[in-house]
């Protein structure tokens, strides 16, 4: 069957808001043409590793960009076939450099900079998510991102002057851009005339730093003023990779992984109530015989569901008890309560 790529949805005029997803789209457009479809799902809960992009090729569910690229190279979609072993070594090194430095730079400019986060990023992310998680997830993402870029100094409040903020992260990004530009040289792509996996990765990050219109586009300014060759490279890549994207479709089958009701209520509702049979009969990655598998999983699942019911009931009962015992909600007649209060009050005052 046709492989499906699950990604974060589109934003800023790009197919996806996430650098890893962009990298994967680029990679797939390098190695295969129109052999896959894109599913904009925006829910990390459906992925086995809790991250998007995720690839589903009929029998395997693979989460995470590096795992997917490794899997695709093994199954015949290898963008690095033409590279010598030395070039391959270099490509590994550049990939890890990009993963470290450019991720930090992107997270810093998007989440640590309040002006950008409040002005553009939060609204772009929340337009992707359904109602309850729309208000929760962007804040959570920001928390995680700020923790990661803490080493460059914390959050910049909006309205802070440009010259008072520290320049550590910009120096770091500039170093990285310089390295990339030197490596690129006069070539069309990093290793000659044909794009490879490094190009996919680098473009995924650079595109999101270069194209979006955000209130404080420091990296865009650095790129367009000091690294014109990288800008030209990005334009070239955009024409090359995003020229004829496959259509976005709905997922052909629901994910077998646990979906929580907050991040994707529709998915969860469907999985839990509407299609219980589909969930149980979803083919898994293991290659055991079907019948054996089925009876085993159903027994386990029955057990699991029973326990879930117990847990939820216990939780609700505990909650109710807590509420009643602490007097948050008083059960009984209103008048009686008032009288009791009065008696207590007068008693206390007479003591004094």
């Amino acid at each position, binding site marked *: 069957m046709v492989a499906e790529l699950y990604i974060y949805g589109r934003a800023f005029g790009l197919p996806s808001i996430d650098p890893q997803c962009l990298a994967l789209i680029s990679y797939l457009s390098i190695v295969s043409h129109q052999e896959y479809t894109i599913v904009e799902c925006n829910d990390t809960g459906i992925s086995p590793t809790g991250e998007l992009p995720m690839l589903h090729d009929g029998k395997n569910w693979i989460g995470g960009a590096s795992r997917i690229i490794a899997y695709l190279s093994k199954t015949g979609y290898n963008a690095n076939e033409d590279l010598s072993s*030395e070039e391959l070594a270099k490509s*590994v090194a*550049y990939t*890890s450099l990009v993963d*470290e430095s450019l991720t930090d730079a992107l997270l810093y400019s998007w989440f640590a900079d309040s002006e950008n986060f409040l002005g553009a990023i939060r609204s772009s992310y929340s337009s992707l998510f359904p109602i309850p998680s729309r208000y929760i997830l962007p804040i959570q993402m920001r928390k*995680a991102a700020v923790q990661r870029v803490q080493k460059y100094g914390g959050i910049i409040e909006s309205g802070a002057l440009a010259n008072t903020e520290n320049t550590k992260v910009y120096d770091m990004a500039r170093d990285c851009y310089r390295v990339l530009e030197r490596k690129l040289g006069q070539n069309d792509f990093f290793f000659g005339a044909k794009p490879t996996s490094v190009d996919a990765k680098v473009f995924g990050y650079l595109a999101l730093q270069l194209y979006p219109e955000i209130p404080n586009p420091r990296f865009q300014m650095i790129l367009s003023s000091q690294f014109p060759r990288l800008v030209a490279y990005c334009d070239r890549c955009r024409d090359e990779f995003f020229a004829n994207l496959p259509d976005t479709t709905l997922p052909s089958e629901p994910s077998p992984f646990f979906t929580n009701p907050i991040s994707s209520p529709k998915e969860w509702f469907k999985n839990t109530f509407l299609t219980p049979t589909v969930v149980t009969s979803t083919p898994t990655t293991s290659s055991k015989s079907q019948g054996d598998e089925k009876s085993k999983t159903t027994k386990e699942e029955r057990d699991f569901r029973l326990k879930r019911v117990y847990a939820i009931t216990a939780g609700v009962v505990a909650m109710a008890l807590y509420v009643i015992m602490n007097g948050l909600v008083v059960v009984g007649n209103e008048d009686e309560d008032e009288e009791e209060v009065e008696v207590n009050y007068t008693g206390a005052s007479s003591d004094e």
Partner: protein
Amino acid sequence: MSDREEQVISTESEPVVEIVEEVQPDGSIIRKKKTTRKITKRVLTTGSSTLVSSSTNESEHASASTTTLEESKHELSTDATAITTDTTTTDTTTATATTSTTNTDNAGSAVDLSVDAEQPPSSTGRSFKYRFFGEGDSGNHPFYKYLAKFPLKQSPAPHTRSRPIKAILYAYAPGWHVGQESSLESEKSPVGSFDVESLKWMSYLKFNNIEFELKPAFEPGMSPSGKLPFLALPNGSFVTADGFESWVQDNKSQSAASKLDLQEAAEAVAFIALAESKIHAALLYTLWFEPSHFHTTTRQHYFGHYHWILTKVLSYMEKSNVASSMLLTRTQIDRELIFEEAATAIEALAVQLGDKDYFFGKSEPSGLDAVVFSYLHVILTMPRIRNAEDAGRSGELTRIVRKHENLFKYSQNIWKRWFAA
């Protein structure tokens, strides 16, 4: 005595000082203070300072105080006194000196003071005395008499620390207690480290021919940045991770580590990033999350100098720190993926190195060599653990490195040339 009582009351109120500068016809400037309150305060202090100094000679002292009183009254009538700040301070010191020594030859000093006492001593010294001993004769106070039995003596310092002549590197040291160095040797002069960051600093300093003295340290809190290693310089300043690179560049000798050209420098940056992300993750996993390593070697090396209870508690705290730091860059700690990536990274390094002595075929090591060597050396000299429960899991990273003979030789050669000699 009635004068003194008045004066006590007047000190409670704050003196309002008005300074007027007048230029005399001969060119000198006379500063004048105009305030009645100020003058009564002055009178008060005259009384108090004579009070302190007089312990036996009551009558003389009384007369002295009255003379000063007259003087100040005279000043009151003219409303002007020329004073300088310098004389004020000296006066203060004399007043306090008499307070502390409680001398007995007061006849002369009392007269001296009464002459000096035109200037006001500081109000704090006086108020302290009043607060604790009232306005009675404090020289006779039993507390002062008692204190006089214990005069303060100053002895010369028995030991003064000499300034270090070369930079001192405080770092985790020495290395794992297996392999190249014997325990006897390491006690005399510690070499190497089991901590990658420390070893990185050592090799970088050695490669740049910078002399330093290594002091084993196990307490990250002693560093200004909260992280080991750090350098203490002879001039009293410290170098932490932030300024290390630039400090080395400023202080290295000319003939030191080889220069890379632009293209090579760019590639070196990429390979350093590779080692510090992928191999680092695998090493952290091996040290902290393989139970056999964690419970024996890691815990003992990082926290072994504490009491065993603290060792346990602190090592678990550090383990959770490591876990959260690893989770910043990934969604889950997946052993299989981490080791797969580490294997790819190590293979990339092996291919890049080839059969040369140092990276990029140089004759002298560079910064990239310092990083790669530190990782390889720590991994290769890690204690081997053999038990059934572990089943070779903890040695996986070492085995991955040992697959590449050139990396093993490379690490060994650097150790022999720069450290073991």
